[in-house]
């Protein structure tokens, strides 16, 4: 298995995460930079949030999006007619691009789900030209992603299986302090810099928070989809109490932070 992320329904992904990831994409692009005419790679492009954010910029000459999940790639490819965008299906650990064939590489919220992140980084270093920049971001599940900590901590208090799922999620590769930058250095990248990128997730009310989780993809969805109806109802009630936290149901804004790193190919 080349990815641990259950990816089937692109629209469900969009409701859970795709409405937020464009905000993070802008931050990652600002951190990594862009130059006129570059061929830019988006590895683990998913539903295309980063690739489309790149296409909103004038600098890229070509934008290549690669992902292993066919439903996500089809969704991404249908989102824009910008002729600079090209999507295909590929495996990050066995990348299908020639050596030094791209100028700059990105990976947004994907490396931690890959079965072999170190191989993916080695492949990025191979396909990016010497002197080119590689930049990536992964969610800080442990300390940065408030909406998901509310979910897992509430579920774990009700169910030992949720506690185990939370432990797996919080120990995902590269998602704890310093791990992403260390992986960049281990891949031989030079001038490695790390930072935290933060966005806000603004929910209209509990239903806006709950429905995307109820129909989620990925680790959250894998857990929720297995719950029998009465346990699901108990979780929903506990989550509503946690979301409202003693106040009236209504808008809430949760911080969402990702670890980011960039480095150049030596």
């Amino acid at each position: 298995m080349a990815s641990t992320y259950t990816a089937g329904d692109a629209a469900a992904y969009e409701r859970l995460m795709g409405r937020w990831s464009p905000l993070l994409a802008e931050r990652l692009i600002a951190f990594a930079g862009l130059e006129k005419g570059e061929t830019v790679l988006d590895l683990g492009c998913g539903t295309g949030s980063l690739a489309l954010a790149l296409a909103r910029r004038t600098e890229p000459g070509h934008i290549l999006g690669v992902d292993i999940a066919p439903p996500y790639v089809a969704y991404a490819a249908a989102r824009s007619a910008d002729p600079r965008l090209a999507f295909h299906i590929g495996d990050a650990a066995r990348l299908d691009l020639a050596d030094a064939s791209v100028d700059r590489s990105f990976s947004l919220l994907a490396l931690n789900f890959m079965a072999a992140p170190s191989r993916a980084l080695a492949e990025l270093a191979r396909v990016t030209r010497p002197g080119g920049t590689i930049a990536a971001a992964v969610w800080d599940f442990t300390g940065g992603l408030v909406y998901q900590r509310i979910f897992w901590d509430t579920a774990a208090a009700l169910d030992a299986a949720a506690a185990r799922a939370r432990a797996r999620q919080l120990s995902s590769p590269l998602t704890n302090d310093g791990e992403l930058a260390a992986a960049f250095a281990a891949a031989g990248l030079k001038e490695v810099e790390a930072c935290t990128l933060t966005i806000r997730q603004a929910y209209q009310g509990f239903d806006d928070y709950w429905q995307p989780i109820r129909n989620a993809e990925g680790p959250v969805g894998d857990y929720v989809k297995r719950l029998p109806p009465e346990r699901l109802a108990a979780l929903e009630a506990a989550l509503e109490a946690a979301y409202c936290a003693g106040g009236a149901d209504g808008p809430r804004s949760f911080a969402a932070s990702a670890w980011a790193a960039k480095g150049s190919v030596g």
Partner: protein
Amino acid sequence: MTDHAPDVDPRLLEILVCPMTKAPLRYDRAAQELISLEAGLAYPIRDGIPIMLVDEARALDEAEKAALKAAPPPP
């Protein structure tokens, strides 16, 4: 594949290689396949999207390999 299948992006075609051997590919436009002679595999293209997964590729038979070896790669 129909005649209306979207074409693969030309820039992508220039830089795609076989994920197994990293060798250049031959584009069979009629069959909508990208062929790796070294690996003996044909990667399918569906709706203009190349599927560059070894597990999804079609194994070439001996007659196909012989014909490809005999024909010079396109310029």
